């Protein structure tokens, strides 16, 4: 039985609606199978991948191929492939968990992710019956390895500006592809590439291109800053002959595949970032406990504690937000009929509903990861700068995450853009909410949150949403259609929304945990929530102020600033004390614990 449509949380609706804890998925909801699969992945990484990581870093990619096939034997390549095509057709939580646990393997996790995600999923979701039968069983076992080729030297963020062309041959049997695809993960060994080209220079279309087709070749291995244990090369198409039956999806509709795959790639990066952050964090805490200066483990210094607690509360936020998002996909997909669930386009649409959340996860979580590895190196001191220490690789590996699958800047700009589109399409009553808020603000009375757990944090979330609507409404009033040129304001808005999503995710997760396990067993979660919400709210206030000052003037400015002051009035918590308390548990357990 599917639930009524009203119960499904709409994409982006968190900004205007109040969400209840039972509506969010949390890591505490993992099943026993989820945990076993996570453990298998962890053991696979530890026992199979890490022992040869140096060889992988030195570009000995025959190991990558061997390891991917081994992953296939364990079933770690087939979670998203339906059972009828040789996979397991498991839920998205499972594939997210696998991605999280793979992340410790650095560049190799990118190889894995490119194969199961952007490499295989276009065929899973948009392939026709023959294509699925031909490719998916072999992709699920690793007999065939996949890659995804969208970027070109001249088109990165502007993906549709691709120059690669396709032309039907005289016999009508093959498309002849010409062009170069740049920075293609797995290009060194992939058997199958999903390639985008413009038919007759116009119709943007996806193709399944096999490595063995005439005219297909790859360039030299790139020398990269990080993720060196993944193969990255140019895919060269010189009169490449692609059979007409290998057109993927509809001719001229390649952008639909590309954008949907980007959504998936984005949240998957968000999950991977959580895994990478947890692993870098653990290395760092262990080091801080071992390393002594002035006869004292450096983890005993309050400044180290401050760093550890800050990072852990950010990881908690990233983790809570991304699994909440994956839970949204699951709920949405449960609404589909059995027929629809078999239709990849429906599944892609279920994910696209949450395009905003995908973007938020992408940029927020990858920046959390960057923060963790950066402070990780810092806590390691000079040793963190040395290659023998794993944190050094983690630091270099992290950097690309803010760039690929849409730079974090592009992803930020997508957030307000998508909100505005949803508002004008009538999917979200944003404008109405903004309107009624204006009246509310005029007669706003300061509110006193109670002192029960999470009362203050819930109050901050509620008011942060009002702050977001107020500042966005103001900007929209002033600039109207021209708002898309005010990129600084758009990015401020995206940051405010991102902090709201993360704050709300931690509050709801902690609330759900307290309901289930009691306050005593949820102490660490509560500390993270208090720390994170306070710090996120401070940033929201500062972003909103910057926007208001840039947009309004005169009396209006004074009025708006006064409204902001009312909305942000609260008694700040003692973050320093909370962090010391949270750090004590972390230092004892020597890892990120909740």
């Amino acid at each position, binding site marked *: 039985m599917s639930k009524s449509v009203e119960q499904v949380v709409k994409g982006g609706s968190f900004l205007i609606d109040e969400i209840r804890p039972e509506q969010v998925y949390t890591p505490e909801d993992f099943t026993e199978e989820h945990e076993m699969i996570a453990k*298998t992945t962890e053991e696979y990484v530890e026992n199979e991948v890490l022992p040869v990581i140096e060889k992988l870093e030195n570009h000995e990619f025959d190991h990558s191929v061997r390891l991917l096939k081994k992953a296939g034997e364990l079933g770690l390549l087939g979670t998203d492939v339906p059972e009828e095509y040789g996979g397991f057709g498991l839920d998205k939580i499972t594939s997210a968990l696998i991605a999280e646990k793979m992340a410790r393997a650095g560049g190799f996790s990118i190889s894995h992710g490119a194969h199961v995600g952007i490499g295989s999923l276009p065929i899973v979701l948009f392939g026709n019956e023959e294509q699925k039968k031909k490719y998916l069983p072999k992709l699920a076992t690793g007999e065939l390895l996949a890659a995804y080729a969208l970027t070109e030297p001249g088109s990165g963020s502007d993906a549709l500006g691709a120059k690669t062309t396709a032309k039907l041959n005289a016999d009508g049997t093959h498309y002849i592809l010409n062009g170069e695809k740049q920075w293609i993960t797995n290009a060194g060994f992939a058997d199958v590439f999903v390639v985008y080209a413009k038919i007759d220079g116009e119709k943007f279309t996806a193709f399944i291109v096999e490595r063995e087709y005439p005219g297909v070749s790859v360039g030299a291995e790139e020398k990269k800053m990080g993720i060196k244990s993944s193969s990255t090369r140019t895919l060269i198409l010189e009169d490449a002959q692609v059979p007409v039956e290998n057109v993927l999806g509809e001719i001229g509709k390649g952008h639909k595949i590309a954008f949907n795959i980007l959504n998936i790639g984005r949240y998957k990066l968000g999950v991977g970032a959580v895994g990478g952050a947890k692993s870098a964090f653990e290395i760092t805490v262990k080091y801080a406990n071992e390393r002594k200066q002035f006869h004292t483990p450096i983890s005993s210094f309050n400044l180290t504690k401050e760093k550890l607690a800050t990072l852990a509360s950010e990881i908690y936020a990233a983790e809570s937000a991304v699994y909440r998002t994956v839970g949204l996909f699951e709920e949405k997909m449960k609404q589909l009929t059995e027929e629809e669930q078999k239709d990849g386009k429906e599944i892609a649409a279920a994910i696209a509903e949450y395009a905003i959340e995908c973007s938020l996860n992408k940029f927020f979580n990858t920046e959390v990861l960057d923060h963790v590895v950066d402070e990780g190196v810092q806590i390691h001191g000079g040793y963190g700068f040395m290659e023998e220490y794993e944190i050094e690789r983690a630091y270099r590996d992290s950097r690309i995450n803010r760039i690929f699958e849409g730079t974090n800047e592009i992803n930020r700009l997508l957030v307000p853009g998508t909100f505005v589109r949803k508002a004008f399409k009538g999917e979200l009553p944003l404008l109405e909410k903004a309107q009624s808020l204006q009246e509310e603000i005029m007669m706003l009375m300061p509110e006193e949150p109670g002192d029960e757990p999470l009362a203050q944090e819930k109050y901050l979330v509620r008011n942060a949403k009002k702050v977001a609507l107020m500042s966005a409404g103001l900007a929209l009033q002033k600039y109207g259609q021209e708002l898309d040129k005010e990129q600084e304001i758009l990015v401020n808005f995206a940051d405010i929304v991102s902090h709201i999503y993360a704050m709300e995710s931690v509050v709801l997760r902690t609330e759900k945990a307290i309901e289930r396990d009691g306050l005593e067993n949820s102490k660490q979660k509560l500390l993270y929530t208090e720390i994170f919400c306070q710090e996120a709210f401070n940033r929201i206030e500062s972003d909103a102020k910057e926007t208001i000052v840039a947009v309004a003037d005169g009396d209006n400015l004074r009025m708006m600033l006064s409204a902001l002051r009312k909305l942000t009035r609260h008694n700040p918590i003692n973050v320093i004390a909370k962090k010391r308390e949270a750090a004590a548990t972390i230092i*004892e357990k020597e890892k990120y614990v909740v």
Partner: protein
Amino acid sequence: MNIYVLLKRTFDTEERITISGGRINEDGAEFIINPYDEYAVEEAIQVRDEHGGEVTVVTVGGEDAEKQLRTALAMGADKAVLINIEDDLDVTDQYTTAKIIATYLGDKEPDLILAGNVAIDNGTGQVGPRVADLLGIPYITTITDLKIDGDKVTVVKDVEGDEETIETTLPLLVTAQQGLNEPRYPSLPGIMKAKKKPLDELELDDLDLDEDDVEAKTKTIEVFLPPAKSAGKVLEGELDDQVKELVSLLHNEAKVI
């Protein structure tokens, strides 16, 4: 072949042991299959794959041990049995566990029973041999190799680093030493299948046992952590003096000679 594996749920090897109120603190600790029992599970699966039959994993414990049993099923065991004593017994020892398992196995006619050499928590290594004794079958501990040919069994036993090869017959109980095999980790298909495999739960009543029948033969007087390691001492001066000082320290301070 009718194969049974005795399995214990133990603390993760990475857990730090803390004590509160005279008991080992279990709050928030991670639990695993006792690593030596993992070798036993792996060996059982290999024997079954070669000779046919069925692998049943048995544990005595509480509801929480279901997770470890499910993991053994995901590795490839066919059935699992949890003998749940949570509500019946507060204090147990190796006698209790062995008696319960032997009673359970009494009418099962096992051909081969595998257990871990020791559990990494209490480390007594008693349950396996006691079960064999109660069942009246031979046992060999700390094995590193197992070959079965009909009823004939050839076993290599680790003897403090040396090897002893022993020939015997089924039925037999063996306990696994490190090096017996490389335990597999559960594959996704294994994990999915494990959901559907039978996991039976029994209580003392189902075995016609009273609490008195299995009452512990030992009593725990005190639980304490090993004393914290103090910093070492570096002796200085002439070699002769150093030797003299060392001997005197061993005599008077460490009191070991």
